[in-house]
């Protein structure tokens, strides 16, 4: 990873770090500030530490680290690549301008994987980012570590397939990836344009929220993939309908004085995410998080996202394809260098101009060039686009909020994967948020990472990629493993950090909702930490099997998604609640006139509530409520949907076809995160 040449250049470069901000406290060209061992920054401004000594300043400056693929007009922007090691952008990224407008100071440019390609921030021309002896996660590892090192108040990263959430999980900070199309990409050097999202890393959800709001305060007209104000208004309407609905639901439950909002919130637990490879600690943390939420009134609902297993493969076809296109400009004419003096020597058509790229970048360019080539595009790129649609559809099936980018659609149950569990004969249950781990393992050791094959490296993104493909807002919250709970959670796997990333995913444009529940979840985590062993939680048995708490037993008794808590009082309430819910018509689903046969059954994801009902006698009544085509949400030029999906297809479940046949069978998935079910 560290070629001697790269090392030399990196050393030379470190001495060139400059002070550039106009509002800097010290104007002398200071020598490089000690940057700690994490190697988190590629370039930085110094002198901030002296500012605190200035008596006239009451408030300390707010410092922000920005990932080095976001252009700034004063600091160099290198993308951690040799090719751009001296690149000074003539303009500033939209998000960077927004931060400066707030009066915040960009204190440095964070190290990363070259052009964002990597999961451990080791593929940098300036050397790997270090989280002690562990991986900092990637590709925004530098942003995460500069935060951990205390060099900044929050850090800006970019998330293409998990590049903000994964470092956040590995480094124990909050990492938020907003919905695609909210934050401007102007000035973000693209890796894969249809997936790239600017994200925030911070110590708390609140800080992340503040930074997100600052960057999202105005719409950038110059970014064609940014949602226009009109579209935002429309999407806001859809979100309002959904949150009104949630409020109504919450009222059915008990008013818990401390946290009423969580009452009635439905949390989806994707069964496919409980993979065999899931490290034990991670599964434990996931389970414990769920149980905490359940204790405060959330409803846990097992949901199925059957196309998740294809998401990672699709991502590693789509992202390199776009990357190969985006990096075509570094061809030795305007960027890069020519190794050989003359053009086209020997039998080679082109000069050797792209040697400056690192191995991973070269690998992905080749991969992308291949999957786009005329012989391979049908089998790879187009199939992957179809998979992307399927992944989006999976999420749309599951979320109770409609996707604001799409017209309301009817889904044919026959098109659904057989593994999807139905809530009733009318369709699967729907949820407000999905909660799953951010990464399947604890951070691996750096030397382990170096021994891994590229494909092993790619595996880290398995839980983050689906939300990226669907453009959904997702956040990683650190679940701290306190030393006091050690007796319940003896370490059985490698890994030294004391936190695990728990990911919360919401429907498109429900960023505020995701941040809202994250805040409450964060508060819960803090409270639990102080209170010792949480109530209603499972107990660890050294034998390796789990004694599921009563709440989980109840959950399984009430498979339809109306679990009962452990607390007898709460239990009663829940039963009451379930009873009320059951008496209410399940509303969203209906049967065609051909009868209630499964293959004819349809269910509707978006809203047309209360038009259908199950009559007292149990027979189905009501008429079919077809949404008027195109009336709601007429698509227009700035519509993002096609950007997210890239391709307009009538997707069916056989679309996946032969794409994965080479991978030898289905990935192993293992049902719910609590593993083996106890006897009922």
């Amino acid at each position, binding site marked *: 990873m560290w070629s001697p040449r790269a090392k030399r250049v990196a050393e030379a470069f470190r001495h060139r770090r400059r002070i550039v901000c106009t509002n800097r406290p010290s104007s002398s060209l200071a020598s490089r500030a000690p940057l700690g061992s994490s190697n988190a920054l590629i370039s930085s401004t110094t002198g901030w530490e002296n500012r605190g000594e200035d008596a006239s300043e009451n408030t300390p400056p707010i410092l922000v680290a920005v990932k080095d693929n976001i252009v700034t007009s004063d600091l160099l922007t290198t993308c951690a690549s040799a090719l*751009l090691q001296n690149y000074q952008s003539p303009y500033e990224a939209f998000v960077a301008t927004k931060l400066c407008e707030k009066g915040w100071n960009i204190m440095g440019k964070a190290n990363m994987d070259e052009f964002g390609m990597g999961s451990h921030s080791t593929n940098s021309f300036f050397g790997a980012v270090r989280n002690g002896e562990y991986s900092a996660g990637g590709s925004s590892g530098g942003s995460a570590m500069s935060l951990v090192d205390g060099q900044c108040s929050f850090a800006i990263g970019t998330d293409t397939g998990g590049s903000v959430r994964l470092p956040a999980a590995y480094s124990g900070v909050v990492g938020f990836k907003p919905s695609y199309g909210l934050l401007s990409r102007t000035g973000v050097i693209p890796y894969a344009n249809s997936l790239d999202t600017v994200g925030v890393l911070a110590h708390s959800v609140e800080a992340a929220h503040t930074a997100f709001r600052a960057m999202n305060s105005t719409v950038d007209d110059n970014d064609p*993939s940014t949602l226009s104000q009109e579209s935002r208004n429309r999407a806001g309407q859809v979100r309002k309908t959904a949150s009104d609905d949630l409020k109504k639901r919450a009222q059915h439950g008990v008013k818990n004085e401390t946290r009423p909002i969580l009452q009635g919130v439905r949390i989806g637990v994707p069964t496919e995410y409980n993979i065999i490879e899931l490290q034990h600690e991670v599964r434990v943390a996931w389970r414990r998080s769920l149980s905490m939420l359940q204790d405060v009134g959330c409803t846990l609902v097992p949901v199925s996202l059957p196309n998740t297993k294809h998401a990672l493969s699709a991502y590693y076809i789509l992202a390199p394809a776009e990357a190969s296109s985006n990096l075509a400009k570094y061809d030795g004419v305007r960027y890069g260098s020519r190794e050989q003096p003359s053009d086209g020597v020997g039998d080679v058509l082109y000069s050797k101009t792209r040697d400056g790229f690192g191995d991973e970048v070269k690998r992905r360019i080749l991969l992308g060039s291949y999957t786009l080539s005329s012989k391979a595009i049908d089998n790879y790129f187009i199939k992957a686009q179809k998979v992307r649609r399927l992944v989006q559809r999976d999420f749309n099936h599951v979320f109770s909020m409609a996707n604001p980018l799409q017209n309301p659609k009817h889904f044919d149950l026959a098109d659904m994967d057989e593994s999807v569990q139905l809530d009733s004969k009318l369709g699967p249950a729907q949820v407000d948020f999905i909660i799953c781990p951010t990464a399947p393992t604890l951070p691996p050791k750096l030397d382990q990472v170096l021994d891994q094959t590229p494909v092993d490296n790619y595996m880290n993104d398995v839980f983050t990629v689906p939300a990226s493909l669907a453009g959904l807002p997702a956040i990683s919250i650190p679940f701290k493993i306190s030393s006091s709970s050690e007796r319940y959670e003896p370490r059985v796997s490698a890994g030294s950090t004391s936190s695990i990333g728990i990911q919360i995913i919401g429907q498109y444009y429900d960023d505020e909702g995701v941040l809202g529940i994250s805040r409450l979840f964060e508060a819960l985590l803090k409270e639990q930490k102080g209170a010792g062993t949480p109530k209603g939680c499972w107990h660890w048995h050294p034998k390796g099997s789990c004694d599921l708490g009563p709440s989980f037993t109840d959950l399984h008794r009430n498979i339809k998604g109306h679990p009962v808590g452990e607390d007898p009082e709460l239990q009663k309430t829940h039963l009451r609640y379930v009873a009320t819910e059951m008496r209410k018509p399940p509303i969203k689903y209906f049967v065609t006139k051909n009868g209630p046969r499964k293959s004819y059954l349809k269910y509707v994801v978006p809203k047309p509530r209360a038009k259908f009902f199950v009559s007292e006698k149990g027979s189905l009544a009501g008429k079919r409520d077809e949404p008027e085509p195109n009336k709601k949400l007429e698509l227009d030029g*700035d519509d993002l949907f096609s950007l997210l999906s890239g391709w307009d297809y009538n997707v069916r479940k056989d679309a996946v076809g032969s794409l994965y046949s080479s991978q030898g069978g289905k990935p192993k998935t293992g049902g719910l995160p609590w593993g083996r079910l106890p006897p009922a």
Partner: protein
Amino acid sequence: MAPIAPRVLRRYLLGGRIPAGGCLNRVKTSPQSAAFSSATKRYHEAQISHPSPIAEPSPIPFRKQLKDEAKRRRAEGTNKVSKQDNQKLEDWELTVGIEIHAQLNTTRKLFSGASSTINDVPNTHVALFDVAMPGSLPKFQPETLIPAIRAALALDCTVQRKSKFDRKHYFHWDQPSGYQITQYYEPFAKDGHIKLYAHDGIAKEDGEEITIGIKQIQMEQDTAKTISEPGDIHLLDFNRVGLPLIEIITLPEIHHPSTAAALVRKVQIILDSVDACVLGMQSGGLRADVNVSVRRRDGSEGGHEYAGVKGLGQRTEIKNLSSFKAVEDAIIAERDRQIELIKSGGVIEGETRGWTIGGTGTKRLRGKEGEVDYRYMPDPDLGPVLIDQTVIRRLKKGLGRLPDEVINLLTTRFGLTVKDAMTLVSLNDGGRYEYFCDVHAAVTLLKTEDPRFDFEADKEIISRQCANWVLHEIGGLTHHLADEENPLGITSTGECIISADNLALLINYLDKKQITARSAKKVLQELFAKGIAGQPTTTSSEIEEAGLWFTPLSSDNYEGLARSVLDMKVVEEILAGKEGKVNFLLGKMMRKDADGRVDPQVATAALKRIIEGYRK
């Protein structure tokens, strides 16, 4: 036809033998003149070399030299099939499809707010995205759709409600991003057609008219302009990069070379007429690629299919043809090459070929193995373009008359010949036609003062008169200060140095015999000269000034004039029965009359009267 520059003319005439220094200083057979000589040959497409007829010093007069040369050329020509007769082969069928690139007439680039210019200072109109600055994003400029949709409507295409942009990847220094944004999977217009008539210059085998289908029209970006300098230096002008182009792709339905050339010419005329295109083909605003394949007429069908047309032979593509002539010549050469190859047992390779102007054959640029895989990918930055029906309706309304419609109107309703109609439409970007309409309207208005005027009966006469003056009379005007390309300064909206009203007055005066034809031409020359000098003037004041109002001569005047030209020898001949000799005398009379006031009929009568007087 545009005037030929004197330099070109000098090479063209007299075998390039006129030295710039004049005839008196002629140098004998200098190497330079030999070079001129070869240039001449190219100009004439004479492909057999022959020794220069005046290579040796000889006293033979120029005129004879020219005659001899022409004679020899004719003799050589008999051995060569003329292009006109080289359109169809008995045993082979040619199939051609064409892709035409035209630069759209817009103020902005396709994906940036930088303005589009043609001849501004290099690299002054460049946005960040145009030079692919890292992190810059495209911003589609909706106004570029206006000329594009106009072009699509003029070519009878269906404008798609939804279209998308794709990236086409290839490496070249004039392409800063490493890919061109184009519309590959979902173009904005599809399924059009273009009708070609005999007067458009199609091959006679295609009959009176032929319809060629248009598969699609797509929008795409132009590349940077390369300016080559001596010493292997290439300068790049990024003003051009990102300018909007349209690519028009026809179906492979053309079977004759001249029809292909006619199609390209017609597309240019149509694009001009709807103001969609910036420059003509000859100025580089239009480029064509042609796909050529052949198959035996009797034999089995070829195994290839292009754009849904089955049974074709393997095709080759000839890239970057920049003139109509090159299109036709390249197709003929490629057709003959393919046939020769098949006859000699070879196999046609799918390859890209090039053509140099004045060449005799196409040249292989790259074969299949060297073919660029463009790796088309939907552009992940750009959303779909949705075009509303109301926009299309609105643009359709404002489209105006297309050239075919105008020619039809001029020939059927106004009695012009197809040739005149075509000329009117094609000159000055349609400005000549506009000017004609203005003159026609003004003349008609003047005529209505006459109570006996009957519009329906007279309109054809008026049209022919106007056409004669607008095309031929003012076309012959020259002035040393006049612009070489467009001496009359006719704009595309029909403005002219000689105002339409002045010309109409002149035509009217002539028609009413208030001035003579000769005076009219004089006045026209004056109007032109004053116009160029920028002095305002009117027809009547010019006539007044020169005293050219026609006052009929009295019979005494006629007789006096007649007597002054009488030649007794001729008179005797006439009296002896050679009546035709009267005209000889009449001619003399006309020549004597400097003001052109002599009415030939009256003069003849006077002459005859006097001659009869001698018959005793």
